């Protein structure tokens, strides 16, 4: 230990520091400034950037002792006297902050950059940020914010706190100031007294019986408070009731490399880590199943990954649905395109690693955890801990992104709850980046053969898909994924003959689940590639053929989805026009191409995951004497902006300013049940519930005034924070009105809810993909392909998405840009690489998220169709936008070099090989 003197944000500190302590640890753990984030600990993500003597440093890879006597500035020191720095303000106003986890590092990096390069070009800005990972924004708004800061434009127009009609106006997140100044607390930032630290021993075999676990040595280590193993938590769980196939820790056998076998709670992480090495496990390996093919083969009971399935092999789920007459459709088609596709798995790669703290007190269990679904976690914890539902409280702090990756109840949440109960102390876990990758739950690796038939005039006649997906070791959302791959192909094109067969297999790999665009991204890619192929074969423009086949608004699909608002046509026309499609597609020089793709997605699953009679969303409003409206909602803001959305809706209905609204969300003790942030349901469902509540509250207010002033309620208006009668004879301000409302009554509480209408057919599987509304969209991509290296450079993206109505256009743009960015990743660089079941690229260096420099210029278009049932006409925008971008890129590659790649990610060498192959066939044909 050495004494380290540091001045941090102007305050002197003297701390005892070990030789191996990194600066990030000293800042966060010893000095207690948690604005500096830890995303990777390996210099790959930039979240931990701080200034040391005015030079930026990655604090996670720099020993603290290097800086004895230095002046450190963290994000907390960037604002002065409680006022944001101008760059921070611009970040907030421009919507450069979503989950906010990358923001502190981003702000410091950008500040230093502009200091040294006062008049940067956009390319220089992109380059400067290229070591900072942002998974939410697609970088666009961050780059714009930095550019604006450098230009020195001050824009003081935006944060208008006293405006009352705000739906449809761009508006920064209500919590953005906290995030940009480093004071927003994420799960790993929560500090409780006497907290123990947990670490997990993970399996090193993909499939093996556990013969014995000896924890005796570990237990003896000084500072170790508890060592637990699977037997102690035998109750099974899983997000879907049909696949409760997981236990908190492995019992008897392990099913993937990385599965938790034992856990230690100790005074420090180091001690817990040391204790793990003292645990002895004896394994008896079982044959492992790592591919879809192998898992489809019949096996003995011993080799089955799960024995409770219906099949003699490792198939988890099979489904098949057929509509119309596919055979006839094929016969009537003049051209049928059939291709086989292959997709590697991808993962969410949110920047905030999983973290949680659990403790028990007289109220039972409380867990503060980075989750998208407090409600399902609440249920799962009660089940696994074997306590009544009323002894569990789940609190979601600020969450650094999810994209579906925080939407299952997780083993670590069960394990620390158990450790906390056993030791009597709070127990905390934070994952390393490697552990985040091991946990996965990402998009399923998939294989599919898809056929599409059309008549000569381009009318689509039939679609058939045969799909197999690799689920990994457990069920997760997989049964839903299995269906979504098929059912979500029945739109946006009119198809009278449509069917699919799909299956999900278990393999000995980390499990797959729901990820942005859930279920339909890969099969959408396939379909859009086939349409492109058919268009070329029929010599019809790929845009025209799509326009020709779109479903209309207010119709029903062959599988009985009720389509209401539908902006596919408008979306496609917009991107075609902006990209000058007509004049450029098919006409650019070799190696340069344009491609198009369309999309379709649910706007909230109409059915709850766990069948029950609760509304899907409930929102409470409380209005008390102080004139402030408290919104309590179970909806989980994970960076997508749902808290702001709720506030805006309530403000709009009551016509009051946002400063009179406070949102308290996602605490299962206090907030009413909301199913959570998945299936793109929050704006539609929680938004509707909030609107319902606000309308009720409005009536309460008007009623009170009507009664007090003896006037008919119909005569009264609530506008601009005043209640007034049509003839203005009555005109009271907000506070006065509230005074009247609460007099002799006290605070007023109202409840709003959303229950989706009964939808769909009554065949088996009819429930899959049912939604009260659907989103639509289109993208055009422009690419350059180097024909000697096969390298693809995406030059530009034009995207349009029908979100019904953009309640907050700034947030909608952010969702669209983030989706497109994520889609680019899956299209050309991201993949989960395994070696014998072991995830190889388990860090942000080897898992290739496009950097700011790999992200092209993006033209963002919001299309509004005013959905009849969405709140103010709104529907989803957070997932569906991802779908069209992947095929648009592949189709652009086809336009550029004439080869069709049917494997994602698209690798340069696949392009080269295809180019060589086509050259050979051409040569053979000319001979």
């Amino acid at each position, binding site marked *: 230990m*050495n004494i380290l003197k540091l001045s941090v944000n102007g305050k002197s500190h003297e701390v005892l520091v*070990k*030789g*191996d302590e*990194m600066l990030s640890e000293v800042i966060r753990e010893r000095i207690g400034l948690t604005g500096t984030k830890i995303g990777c*600990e*390996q*210099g*790959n993500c*930039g979240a931990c*950037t701080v200034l040391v003597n005015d*030079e*930026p*440093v*990655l604090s996670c*890879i*720099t*020993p603290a*002792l*290097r800086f*004895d006597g230095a002046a450190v500035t963290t994000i907390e020191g960037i604002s002065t006297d409680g006022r944001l720095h101008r760059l921070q303000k611009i970040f907030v106003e421009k919507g450069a902050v979503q989950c906010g986890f990358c923001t502190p590092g981003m702000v410091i*990096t950008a500040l230093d*950059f502009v200091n040294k390069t006062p008049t940067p070009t956009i390319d220089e800005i992109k*380059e*400067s940020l*290229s*070591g*900072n990972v942002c998974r939410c924004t697609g970088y666009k708004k961050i780059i714009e914010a930095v550019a604006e800061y450098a230009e020195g434009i001050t824009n003081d127009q935006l944060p208008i706190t006293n405006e009352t009609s705000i739906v449809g106006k761009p508006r920064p997140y209500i919590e953005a100031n906290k995030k940009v100044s480093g004071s927003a607390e994420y799960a790993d930032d929560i500090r409780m007294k006497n907290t123990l630290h947990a670490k997990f021993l*993970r399996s*090193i*075999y993909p499939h093996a019986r556990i013969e014995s676990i000896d924890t005796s040595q570990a237990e003896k280590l000084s500072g170790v408070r508890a060592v637990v193993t699977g037997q102690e938590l035998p109750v099974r769980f899983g997000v879907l009731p049909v696949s409760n196939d997981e236990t908190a820790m492995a019992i008897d056998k392990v099913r993937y*490399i990385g599965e938790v076998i034992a856990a230690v709670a100790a005074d420090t992480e*180091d001690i817990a*880590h040391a204790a793990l090495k003292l645990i002895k496990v004896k394994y008896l390996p079982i044959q492992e199943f790592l591919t879809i093919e192998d898992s489809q083969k019949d096996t003995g009971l011993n080799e089955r990954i799960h024995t409770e399935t219906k099949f003699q092999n490792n198939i988890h789920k099979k489904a098949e649905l057929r509509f119309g007459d596919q055979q006839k459709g094929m016969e009537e088609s003049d051209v049928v395109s059939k291709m086989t596709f292959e997709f590697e798995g991808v993962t969410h790669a949110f920047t905030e690693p999983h973290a949680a703290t659990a403790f028990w007190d007289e109220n039972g269990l409380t867990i503060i955890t980075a989750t998208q679904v407090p409600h399902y976690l609440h249920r799962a914890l009660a089940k696994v801990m074997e306590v009544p539902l009323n002894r569990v409280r789940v609190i979601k702090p600020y969450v650094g992104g999810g994209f579906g990756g925080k939407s299952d109840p997780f083993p670590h949440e069960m394990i620390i709850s158990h450790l906390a109960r056993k030791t009597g102390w709070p127990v905390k876990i934070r994952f*390393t980046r*490697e552990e985040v990758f091991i946990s996965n739950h990402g998009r399923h690796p998939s294989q599919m053969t898809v056929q599409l038939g059309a008549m000569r005039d381009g009318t689509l006649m039939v679609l058939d898909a045969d799909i197999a997906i690799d689920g990994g070791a457990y069920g997760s959302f997989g049964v839903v994924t299995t269906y979504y791959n098929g059912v979500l192909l029945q739109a946006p094109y009119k198809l009278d003959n449509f069917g699919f067969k799909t299956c999900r297999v278990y393999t000995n790999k980390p499990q797959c689940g729901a990820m942005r665009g859930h279920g339909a991204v890969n099969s959408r890619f396939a379909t859009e590639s086939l349409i492109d192929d058919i268009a070329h074969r029929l010599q019809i423009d790929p845009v025209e053929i799509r326009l020709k086949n779109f479903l209309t608004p207010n119709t029903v699909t062959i599988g009985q989805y009720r389509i209401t608002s539908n902006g596919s046509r408008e979306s496609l026309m917009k991107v075609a026009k902006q990209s000058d499609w007509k004049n450029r597609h098919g006409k650019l020089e070799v190696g340069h191409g344009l491609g198009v793709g369309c999309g379709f997605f649910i706007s909230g699953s109409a059915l709850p995951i766990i069948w029950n009679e609760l509304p899907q969303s409930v929102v409470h409003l409380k209005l008390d004497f102080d004139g402030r409206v408290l919104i309590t909602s179970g909806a989980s803001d994970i960076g997508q902006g749902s808290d702001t959305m709720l506030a805006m809706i309530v403000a709009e209905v009551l016509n009051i300013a946002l400063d009179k609204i406070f949102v308290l969300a996602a605490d299962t003790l206090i907030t009413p049940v909301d199913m959570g942030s998945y299936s793109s349901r929050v704006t539609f469902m929680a938004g509707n519930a909030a609107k319902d509540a606000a309308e009720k509250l409005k009536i309460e207010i008007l009623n009170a005034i009507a009664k007090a002033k003896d006037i008919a309620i119909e005569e009264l208006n609530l506008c601009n924070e005043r209640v007034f009668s049509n003839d203005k004879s009555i005109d009271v301000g907000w506070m006065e009105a509230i005074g009247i409302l609460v007099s002799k009554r006290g605070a007023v509480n109202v409840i709003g809810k959303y229950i989706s209408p009964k939808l769909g057919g009554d065949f088996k599987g009819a429930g899959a993909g049912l939604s009260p509304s659907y989103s639509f969209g289109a993208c055009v991509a422009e690419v350059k392909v180097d024909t*000697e*290296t*096969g390298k693809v450079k995406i030059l530009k993206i034009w995207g349009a998405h029908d979100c019904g109505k953009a309640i907050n256009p700034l947030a909608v743009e952010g969702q669209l840009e983030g989706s497109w960015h994520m889609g680019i990743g899956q299209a050309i*660089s991201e993949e989960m690489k395994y*070696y*014998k079941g*072991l995830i*190889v*690229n*388990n860090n942000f*260096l*080897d898992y*290739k998220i*496009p*950097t*700011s*420099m*790999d992200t092209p210029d993006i033209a963002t278009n919001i299309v509004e169709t005013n959905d009849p049932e969405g709140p103010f006409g709104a529907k989803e925008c957070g997932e569906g936008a991802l779908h069209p971008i992947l095929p648009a890129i592949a189709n652009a590659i086809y336009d550029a070099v004439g080869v069709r790649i049917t494997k994602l990610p698209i*690798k*340069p*060498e696949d392009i*080269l090989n295809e180019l060589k192959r086509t050259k050979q066939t051409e040569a053979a044909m000319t001979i």
Partner: protein
Amino acid sequence: MIAAKTYHKCQSVEEAIALALKHGEDFRYMAGGTDVIINKFQGNDETNCLIDISAIPELKQVSNDWNVLRIGSLVKLDDLKKHKTIADHFPALLEAAHSVASPMIRKTATIGGNILCENRCIFYNQSEWWREAVGYCLKCEGDVCIATGGKKNCFSKFVSDTAPVLICLDAQIEVFDTDGVKLIKLEDIYTGDGVNPRQLNPKAIVTAILLPLDKDYRCVFKKLRPRESVDYTSLTTAVSIDKKGRIKIALGGVDPGPVVAEGIGMSAIDSLILQVFKKARVIDNDFYTRPYRKEMIKVFLQRSFAELGNTNKQFDN
């Protein structure tokens, strides 16, 4: 988990070496530390003492005398461009330095550390748990190479991006060893053995990199990587021609060491390309496959020579 119990910051080369001598083998010099600390984090480097040399003032200088440019080993990659002589004479070196890692890392990483950074392999640059699960390989106490499915040699990738350019520029390094100061040709410190890629006394300190200023090099640098920033190399190529028409090729990222070939005149190009192509022991331990990286060696070199040719017509013979 970072294994280093003690930390020392030194103010002079002598102090650093004296400390090193005290610690036997159980220490690591750290310049920027951007390579060392990651290797420690993953448990690949288990030495118990960090000797931080980053504050030694005389290693941060850039000077030129006697037609030799002397770049102190502690000059940060991001600072190289601030020196006009480097920009004027060796733009390819700036390009190479600029291609390393990310902007933030280049503000800490040094050129000395870059030429000495550890070889990489996707089966080696992993956590201790991971390596146990895969069954340790040759580079970490195992018996076989996993990447090649059982070979008895390690083919971890040589990843320095500046080294190939420096080699093409005939760089020498100045080494302060326990027995005195020496000058060594840069390529001579690399062994081509993936387990022990450098033959340099671990206690020696590289004090400077020396580049001749009187040879009028033209040099072209290229790097293959999946993304435009952050990524390590999947193939680095450097080619140079000096005023006498001497041609040099150096590859990185495709062998445990730099792959070097030399010849005279543009007519030697094809055979030189073939030579390095054959020499490069590429294996499947990278984002890109072995055949692709092999193929790209030719594409990159042909392109590089085409670019050289365009600016160097006078040397054609």
